[in-house]
């Protein structure tokens, strides 16, 4: 039989047994749920141990706020917020697994599995080997400047997309079990629905910016710029800038300028200092 591999290339056996975890020290390697090093979860009981969450947050803040409240009203108990991910599709699936199966009544149901634990050990071994390899190559800052890390991720990505193209990495609906376009209608209306950008928000921000003490804003932003140019702690001037009403965009712009980049990467807004 052909050797099977995990997605990251770890060879997989057909069967895992106690021999694969020989010498496995439960307390040291795994530990109890709710106790350090929290390998089996942060809570010792199953209540609340299963948190339904999904990436949410889209468009401008008031719309995201509305969406988060809606998800909470529908029974979501954890929020993962990201800038631009419209969602609602997976909450019910999680609720079915949580409420209709007994899996959520047990903390960390797969903990101690011969397969899971030996795979975790193998990953740990490989991660350490890679860390030592990188450390042996010299100063990480130099490696970063030479583009080593960037190339590393690009290679991984190119390899991933090659495996999808060749079909060696199956992705249901993409390179295996595809649905003809005319039959692929589920949720399509939602996908095609467009959300108009909230133009009024731009006006509100403009008004907010004009209503501030501009002399003070210039002064605090100059503070951020100057500290960013040196080696001093940036937190103090950043907090002062926020307290005086500067925006995150303005503060980020000061830091970009200090590091030799344009204030606005789009070249539309002039630096206030």
């Amino acid at each position: 039989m052909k050797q099977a591999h995990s997605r990251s290339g770890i060879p997989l056996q057909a069967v895992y047994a106690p021999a694969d975890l020989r010498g496995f020290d439960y307390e040291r390697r795994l530990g109890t749920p709710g106790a350090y090093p929290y390998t089996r979860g942060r809570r010792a009981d199953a209540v609340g141990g299963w948190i339904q969450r999904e990436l949410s947050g889209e468009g401008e803040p008031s719309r995201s706020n509305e969406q988060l409240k809606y998800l909470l009203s529908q029974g979501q108990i954890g929020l993962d917020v990201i800038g631009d991910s419209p969602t609602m599709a997976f909450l019910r699936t999680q609720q079915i697994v949580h409420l209709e199966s007994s899996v959520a009544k047990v903390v960390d149901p797969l903990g101690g599995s011969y397969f899971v634990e030996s795979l975790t050990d193998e990953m740990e071994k490989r991660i350490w080997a890679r860390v030592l390899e990188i450390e042996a190559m010299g100063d990480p800052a130099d490696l970063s400047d030479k583009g080593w890390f960037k190339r590393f991720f690009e290679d991984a990505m190119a390899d991933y997309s090659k495996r999808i193209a060749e079909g060696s990495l199956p992705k249901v609906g993409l390179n295996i079990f595809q649905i003809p376009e005319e039959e692929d209608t589920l949720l399509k209306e939602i996908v095609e629905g467009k959300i108009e950008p909230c133009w009024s928000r731009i006006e509100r921000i403009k008004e907010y910016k004009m209503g501030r003490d501009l002399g003070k804003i210039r002064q605090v932003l100059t503070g951020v710029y100057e500290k960013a140019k040196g080696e001093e702690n940036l937190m103090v001037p950043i907090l002062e800038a926020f307290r005086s009403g500067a925006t995150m965009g303005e503060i980020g712009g000061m830091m970009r300028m200090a590091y030799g980049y344009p204030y606005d990467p789009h070249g539309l807004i002039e630096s206030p200092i």
Partner: protein
Amino acid sequence: MRKIKVYIGTLGLDQHELGAVAVSRMLRDAGMEVVYAGRFNLPPMILKTSLEEDVNVIGLSCHSWEHMYYVPELLGLLREKGVGIPVVVGGSVITPGDRKRLVEIGVTAAFGPGASEREIVETIRKIAGRADASG
């Protein structure tokens, strides 16, 4: 013969660069020259770079909402200046409806999330007018 030269960049505030990098590699490996503009590009900047670099095709990576705003603007700008460089878009967020609309308004090709490397490379070669050429 000069290599096919392709502009690749992302639009506006779109932070998702991996697709653009992946496509750039595909085109490079297929023997094309890529002018990689990275992130934060607006239509006037795209036009300027494309003219300066004398590219055969403008390729835009779309993984955020901006494409339905900036692509029409870019096409308008190209028409206004009488520039005939074909525009190609590709990305995870391009729906069948977007594809139809973008082609209607003048985009030469639009690739959705399932487009294969072969499809992308061959289409760009064809658009650049070198269907038989090796690079």
